[in-house]
């Protein structure tokens, strides 16, 4: 309101102590004569404001990194006590352990199975919702609903949907299969790879793909995370200036051309953000797996987090080993995200 008046008041050039105060954001009226006194006061107050959060973050986010590295070099019990120095033995054990490689494979399958599917689906849905059609608020709310649902309750429902056909109980997934004339599946109890199930025995075991059980968990995860990506994409799409679409239209660009030359480049930062967040999320998935399969059948859904939990919580005397696994996983995530950052640095278009 008052903006149109501002040009009547010529802004005075700030000089001296006032300029100093501006630069440091000091509240110069408190002590006009001693700028340095003011700065000290503000600094102290600033640190005071940071203390509560810094204390929590320091104790439960930063310090534990150091502690985890320390633990990974020792043999320790359940509570981190009774340590013997082992050097890198825990790491060596991990790399020589079939369980570790299996868990890594499961983690990678899980990431590859959930991230592209979630991104493609949510990108399509976001674009449809962005067409300003009727009821878009309602659609958006429902698509977002799984995201606020607890992973335990969601996993419980999906477990019920996937209920295998045993004795008197009957899951709805098998009912659908039977209706279209297919055999019921064991779903979460099925350790065989999906490709083996589809193509039969001629698939070699290394190419069997993720187990059907793992795929079931992935479906649950895509369902759970979809609304989050939709909402982020909608925010990204609404940042694209409409002039760009108008310009594309005047230049005679069709739907696909506009999509390729305007929408994709303009939402590429959103894509990048989502790939990064989803990668970190996928690598630390725990709850749906724990509730739906607890790592089974035959370990085909034991991902890295499940393995760490198992080594740390269920087994005894392997806490140091669990810490080593966690550090390895952290390293993998750091490498992946920095690779993504380098790749994105070249291609992502920042408006």
């Amino acid at each position, binding site marked *: 309101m008052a903006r149109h008046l501002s040009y009547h008041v010529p802004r005075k050039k700030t000089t001296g102590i006032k300029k100093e105060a501006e630069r440091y954001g000091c509240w110069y009226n408190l002590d006009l004569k001693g700028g340095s006194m003011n700065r000290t006061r503000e*600094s102290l*107050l600033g640190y005071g404001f940071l203390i*509560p*959060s810094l204390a929590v*973050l320091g104790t439960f986010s930063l310090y534990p990194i150091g502690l985890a590295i320390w633990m990974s070099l020792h043999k320790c019990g359940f509570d981190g006590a009774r340590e013997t120095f082992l050097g890198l033995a825990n790491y060596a054990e991990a790399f020589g352990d079939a369980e570790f490689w299996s868990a890594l494979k499961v983690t990678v399958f899980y990431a590859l199975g959930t991230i592209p599917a979630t991104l493609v689906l949510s990108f399509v849905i976001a674009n449809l919702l962005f067409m300003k*059609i009727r009821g878009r608020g309602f659609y958006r709310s429902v698509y977002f609903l799984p995201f606020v649902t607890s992973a335990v309750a969601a996993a419980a429902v999906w477990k*019920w949907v996937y209920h295998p056909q045993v004795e*008197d109980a009957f899951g709805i997934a098998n009912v659908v299969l039977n209706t279209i004339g297919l055999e019921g599946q064991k779903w979460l109890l099925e350790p065989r790879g999906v490709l083996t199930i589809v193509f039969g025995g001629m698939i070699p075991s290394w190419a069997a793909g993720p187990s059907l059980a793992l795929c079931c968990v992935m479906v649950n995860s895509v*369902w759970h995370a979809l609304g989050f990506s939709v909402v982020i994409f909608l925010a990204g799409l609404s940042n694209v200036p409409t002039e760009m679409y108008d310009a594309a239209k005047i230049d005679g660009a069709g739907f696909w051309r506009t999509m390729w030359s305007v929408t994709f480049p303009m939402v590429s930062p959103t894509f990048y953000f989502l790939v990064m967040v989803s990668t970190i999320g996928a690598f630390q998935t725990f709850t749906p797996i724990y509730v739906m399969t607890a790592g089974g059948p035959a370990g085909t859904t034991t991902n890295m987090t499940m393995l760490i939990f198992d080594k740390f919580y269920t087994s005894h005397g392997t806490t140091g080993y669990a810490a080593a696994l966690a550090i390895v996983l952290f390293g993998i995530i750091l490498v992946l995200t920095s690779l993504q950052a380098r790749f994105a640095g070249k291609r992502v278009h920042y408006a």
Partner: protein
Amino acid sequence: MRRPGVVILVHGVLIVGLILVAFPFFWMVSTSLKTKDESVSVPPRMLPEECRWENYAEAWNKAPFARYFVNTAAVSLAVTTAVVVTSLLAGYAFAMMEFPGKKILFVLYLSTMMIPFEVVLVPNFATINALGWQNTYAALIVPWMANVFSVFLIRQTLMSLPRDFRDAALVDGCGHLRYLWYIAAPLTRPILITAGLLAFLGSWNAFLWPLVVTNTEKMRVIQFGLQMFLREESTDYHLLMAASTFTILPIVVVYVVAQRYFIEGVSGSGLKG
């Protein structure tokens, strides 16, 4: 302007998606209202013959859910309040104040967002042990009392406030504390609500951490309680679904009432730095 065919196609695709997304919810509520026989009948019935609301009472009484709810509500409210207060203070310091090391501290804050939870899980358990906090509310609350994402959101919002507000406050002789209380906090209220809601959501749905730091029934929170119930009553699907329904009900109610803030908060996470 747009052809009606396109509109119908778009709605068609969205409705198919909607049905797929909503079906598990429908199936959960529908199963929760059936009798045991109905819930496992072949072929399955989409809707119960008559709604058995007493399933909810039965599930509720089969495990100490009241206790779980009280625990969870206490923990969630404490975490929410703490996150709002600590984030407002830190966000304000980063946005409105100058002090040596501010940049480094801010980068340090942001870098903690990159740390995966399983890395800190093991050492944090050791810390809780060393503090003697197993099976206490402190273990469930204290590690979650700060949230960097909220700090970041609040900082961004404060920095986007018009400079004139600050100048006017300066001229009137208002210090940081008064500015924070009378200007910054009221003006950032939507973001504070958002931060609070996200903290509440995270706390209500927390599972792995409570699983690790509590092992008595008295200290169990709702998600852990539900998981134990799932294990113990593994065949009574109508009761399991009833328990799942009342577990997510509070958060769904909060979501429906405050969805604007939820969605704003999540969209905010895509902000460019």
